[in-house]
Each structure stands twice: as structure tokens, then as C-alpha cells.
């Protein structure tokens, strides 16, 4: 097992092998090791219609500027990373191998770390998040070795069909083949020139982020006196007298162990013999009628809407009248169809289509007690209906079982004569060869069609064939 996990981590076929492996524990933010860019009212390149790397650098830094936004991103990322998933399929060894592939994602860091990084890139860059599919060989049929997160700021969309992205490793740029990459962006642009980049949550909520950051910064500076927020012009006071007063104030405050209230810049005039008088020029202040709680509520709602979270995740309903319980449930239910649920769908489809073997699939499952109760209640309803069909309508027991299989109350194995109404396949099912068509490859559980010799499924078939061959030689 440790050998297998080591092979999932070695990145021998990954584009990440071109990055420098630091031995002394130091690191640099390759591609961007500059200072934190201040948030302006308008993001740079906001006037440009197409996504850009410069804009993504700003957007990716937004959690550093505003704590509530950082918290919202953290909540969305951790909620998603904590979701349970299942691997479905008919071959037990293949399912186990797929589970190990996902649990050891990102060079062995694990599924949780892997998805935390993906969500951050998805929410805070228009370029979106990227997963490298490391394979044992070349070509779309080569067996999958490992999955890695790629830093979105290092990935450039090329617009080329066969090599849709390029990765800026430490030693230069490397093109990545289409079968080695999954790219997911929020609200992908319909414009061809965007090459699949979109509008992330940070872009859509930018003004609220910048506003709330400015408000909190103003309040912080006002309370700590760390920079002048207003100018008082005073006449009748010489500059030297002013400097002495300010300096003694500083020293006095330091002696007492707390910062002085330095939020006011005082300018004296040259008319030293005039009476002391003056007027105030504000450099920064909140508007009349400013309500901090109201502004916070507005921003938090904007954050929740743009990320696709239930607003209660950021701010519980408190002090509400009767009926808030039902309102809470409605809000929670509505959140199921938004934002992060779309990301879950995209990730599920991409992994099932490109990264997992043909005969297995991954699906996220609900684990909350309320969901389990809902499932149980629904199942009971269907059982009651089936019983009524048998008792009152004269439907046979087999037909009643078919009904329960159709609604996923019973497994297909409960039907003695097989599923008479196969029905539709869901988005997480893998399609099978259609009737009447020559299969392009052998049935998946035969295992010889497109797999390498070391594939686990083929290994099962080979082992069985080896036993037969031994018996045959013995009989001869």
C-alpha cells in the first residue's frame, strides 16, 4: 500500500515535475511575489470585457483585504471539502483503486486539501480552477496515475484544441494536452475570445468587498488613530508650538502604554499673533445616516448570493418573528440549487468523463439527518403506494417490486426477472453500448479492450485465465 501511495505522489509524469523542489523549506509565490495590491473602487481591467491575469491577481487577493469575505470563502470551501462522496461500479478492485486515486489527490495531500484549493481558485479567479490528470503514458486511453491541483495564476488558456492550456512551471511554460487537464470556471463567458474563462464570485461581489474593506479600514484607523482622517486648520499657533504639543502627546501616550489618538492632523497658520481659531477639513468620513449593521447585512447578502451560499451560513436569522424556522428551511432548500451545487455538478461530470475508468463513477451524497429522514419518508410513501396497488388494484407482487425499483426503494437484484423498465440513465451513470451497435470496445468487465496490462480489472481476468491455463496443461 505504501508503494502504491508513493507512486501517486511522485509526479513523474506531471507538469509539476518542472517546478523547483525547494529543499530548505523556503518558497516564493512564483509568478506573483509582489505586494498586496490595494483594492480600488474599480478593479484594474474592469473596463476590459475579457478576463485577464492581472485582474485575477487582484481578485485572488480579495480574501486578504476583507475578513468577512475571507470567512465566506472559507465557509464555502470547507463545506464543499467536507461533503461525502461514493464510488459506484461493478468491479470492486477498480472502485477501490479509484477511491485511492481521489483520497491521495494533489501529490498525496489528500482530497480535502485538493478541493479546498480548487474552490478558492473557482471563487476567486475568472480563469477558474484546474486539475491535472497525470497518466502513466500518453494518449487519452493511458491509465490515470494521479490528480493534481494547478495554481490558476500559473495556467494560461491557449485557445488550442489539442493543448487548451499551458502551465508556467519554474523552468518555463509547458503545454498540457486536452486529456491531461480539467478546467472549471464560474459563469464561463459566452464570448469566444474568453476561451472558457468566466466571472468568479470575487469579480461579481468586488464592489461590496471593496466597500466593506474600506468601511472596516476607516473604523480601524479611526479607533487606532493610525492615520489622519481630518485636518484642522488653526491660526494663532506657531508650527514649533504645534510640533512640541504633538510630540509630548506621543511620548505621554507611549509612557502610558497605549497608542495616542492621532486621527487628527493639525496645521497651523503663519499668523502667530492672531487669536486661536480654526476649521475642520475631513479627509475620510462616513456619510450622514451611515448604519454599519445595515451595510454589513447588504454586503453579506451579496457575498452569499455570489458564492451561492445559504445567507444563514454567513449570518444566522436572529431576533426574527415567528415563522423564521420555516424561513430558515426555505433559505436552506433554495441554496441547494445555487452556486456551489453547480460547481459540484461540473466537478462530478468532469471527473466521471475524463478522470475515472469507464466502469466506475463518483457521486456526492447527502449525509445530513434531515436528508436521510426525507429519504426514509419518501421511501415509506412509495411502499404504501405499492401495497395499495397490490391490495386494491390487483397489481402482482412482481409489478409492485418493479415500481419500487423504479423509485430506487429496492435494488434491481430484487427483481427475479430483471428490470422490465430500464428507464433513463442519470447524469452520474455511465452509458452502455446501444442495442444493435457493434461495440467499439469489449464490455468493460472483460477488461482487455483499452486497458494496460497492469490494470486491476484486466488483472482479475488474467488471473482467472492463468488458473484455466494451468488446469488445461495439467489435463493434457
Amino acid at each position, binding site marked *: 500500500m505504501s508503494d502504491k501511495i508513493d507512486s501517486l505522489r511522485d509526479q513523474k509524469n506531471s507538469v509539476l515535475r518542472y517546478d523547483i523542489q525547494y529543499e530548505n523549506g523556503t518558497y516564493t509565490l512564483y509568478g506573483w511575489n509582489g505586494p498586496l495590491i490595494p483594492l480600488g473602487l474599480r478593479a484594474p481591467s474592469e473596463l476590459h470585457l475579457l478576463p485577464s491575469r492581472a485582474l485575477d491577481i487582484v481578485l485572488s487577493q480579495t480574501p486578504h483585504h476583507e475578513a468577512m469575505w475571507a470567512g465566506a470563502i472559507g465557509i464555502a470551501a470547507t463545506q464543499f471539502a467536507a461533503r461525502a462522496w461514493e464510488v459506484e461500479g461493478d468491479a470492486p478492485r477498480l472502485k477501490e483503486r479509484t477511491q485511492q486515486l481521489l483520497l491521495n489527490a494533489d501529490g498525496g495531500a489528500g482530497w480535502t486539501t485538493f478541493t479546498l484549493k480548487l474552490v478558492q481558485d473557482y471563487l476567486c479567479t475568472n480563469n477558474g480552477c484546474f486539475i491535472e490528470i497525470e497518466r502513466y503514458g500518453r494518449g487519452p486511453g493511458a491509465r490515470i496515475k494521479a490528480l493534481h491541483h494547478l495554481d490558476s495564476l500559473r495556467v494560461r488558456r491557449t485557445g488550442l484544441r489539442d493543448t487548451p492550456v499551458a502551465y508556467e512551471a519554474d523552468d518555463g511554460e509547458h503545454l498540457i494536452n486536452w486529456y491531461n487537464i480539467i478546467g472549471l470556471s464560474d459563469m464561463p463567458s459566452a464570448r469566444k475570445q474568453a476561451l472558457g474563462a468566466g466571472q468568479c464570485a470575487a469579480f461579481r461581489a468586488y464592489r461590496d468587498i471593496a466597500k466593506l474593506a474600506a468601511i472596516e479600514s476607516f473604523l480601524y484607523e479611526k479607533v487606532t488613530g493610525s492615520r489622519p482622517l481630518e485636518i484642522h486648520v488653526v491660526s494663532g499657533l506657531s508650527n514649533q508650538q504645534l510640533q512640541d504639543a504633538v510630540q509630548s502627546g506621543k511620548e505621554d501616550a507611549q509612557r502610558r502604554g497605549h497608542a495616542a489618538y492621532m486621527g487628527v492632523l493639525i496645521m497651523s497658520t503663519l499668523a502667530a499673533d492672531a487669536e486661536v481659531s480654526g476649521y475642520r477639513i475631513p479627509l475620510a468620513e462616513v456619510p450622514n445616516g451611515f448604519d454599519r449593521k445595515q451595510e454589513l447585512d447588504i454586503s453579506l447578502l451579496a457575498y452569499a448570493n455570489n458564492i451561492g451560499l445559504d445567507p444563514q451560513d454567513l449570518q444566522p436569522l436572529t431576533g426574527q418573528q415567528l415563522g423564521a424556522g420555516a424561513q430558515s428551511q426555505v433559505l436552506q432548500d433554495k441554496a441547494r440549487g445555487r452556486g456551489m451545487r453547480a460547481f459540484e455538478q461540473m466537478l462530478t461530470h468532469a471527473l466521471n468523463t475524463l478522470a475515472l475508468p469507464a466502469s466506475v463513477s463518483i457521486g456526492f451524497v447527502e449525509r445530513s439527518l434531515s436528508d436521510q429522514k426525507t429519504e426514509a419518508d419518501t421511501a415509506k410513501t412509495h411502499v404504501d403506494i405499492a401495497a395499495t396497488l397490490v391490495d386494491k388494484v390487483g397489481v402482482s407482487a412482481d409489478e409492485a417490486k418493479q415500481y419500487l425499483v423504479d423509485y430506487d426503494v429496492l435494488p434491481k437484484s430484487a427483481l427475479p426477472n430483471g428490470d422490465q423498465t430500464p428507464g433513463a440513465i442519470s447524469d452520474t451513470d455511465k452509458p452502455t453500448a446501444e442495442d444493435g451497435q457493434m*461495440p467499439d470496445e469489449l464490455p468493460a468487465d472483460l477488461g482487455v479492450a483499452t486497458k494496460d496490462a497492469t490494470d486491476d480489472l484486466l488483472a482479475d481476468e488474467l488471473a482467472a485465465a492463468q488458473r*484455466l491455463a494451468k488446469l488445461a496443461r495439467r489435463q493434457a
Partner: protein
Amino acid sequence: MSDLDWLIQRLRRIIAAATTALEGRISESGAVDAWQSTVTDAIGRYSLAAMMTGSGDDQLSPEQLKAVKKAVQTQATFLDAFALEIQGAAAWQAGWNARAEMYASSIKAPYWTGKVKMLPLPAMPGDGSTQCLTNCGCAWDIQQLDGEGNYDCYWRRGKNDSCQTCVGRSARWAPLRIRDGEIV
């Protein structure tokens, strides 16, 4: 009984059992598909075993696996057409059981491919390219010569009542010469 005959007999029994089970159920939804899947799976597994038995090596190379895949895909194509015919019929036809059991002999081709060590020979006994189809009882007799890739290959008839194709081959390929790995 040779090792190949043993494998063919076992596979024939499996196919016979699956086909007998299908007899009264051809109108049931999914029954023919299940039969086709069972028979294809069995042909695949026994083809692998035949390649191992013929080559004498339980660890198959990618080339050997590819050869097995090609052979099984060929049979899968024929089986697909057969399944369509069954699905379209109103009743079970006499002769279908025997026809299904003939697929067991299809493993002769991968067996001989392994036996001749993947030499680029134009045909294998029982690969369906002769009038006798999978009933072919002929065999390759490979004689290795000095130098790498040099062989004289003889098509030997194994039955007195061989078909015309096999009679012609035994005369024509006596021997079929391979020099430096290529047929000359």
C-alpha cells in the same frame, strides 16, 4: 486430450448452458443481451487462457494482449449479429444451440498465435478464414533456422477430410518462409 481441446470443451459447456437457459426466454427484455454478455465474457477469458497455454507463458505481453483483443472483437462482431437474429425471431430455431457452441472453437486462433510466438503468419487454424471455419484441425509446424527471425513454417493437416482451403494451404505453405522476421 490436448490442453487446447480441454479449454474448448469447457467453454463449449459454458456456452451450451447459457444458450439452453435462453431458449424459452428470447422474448424477455434483456435476456438476449445478458446471454450475449455472458458468452462474450467467457470467450474473452478463455481466449486469454488459450494464448497463455499456446505460448507457454502466463504473463502476456502487450502485443499478445492486443492479438487476443482483436480475436475477441472479431467474435464479438459475429455474436452481435447472431444476437440480433435471435432477438428478431418469433421462436427458437433448431440449430442455434450448435451454432452458439461453435464459438467455443474460436479460441484456437489466439492459441495458435501464442504457439507460433507471434510470428507474422497470414492465418491461424480455426480463425474462420477457411471453409471449415472453426472446425479446422490443422496446425502450424514452425522450424527455427539459423540467424535471428528466420523460420520455415508448414501448414499441417490434422484431418483426413480437410476442406479445400486447408488442402491448398498445406500444398502452398510447405514451407512458408520467414526471413529476418518477414514473410518472403
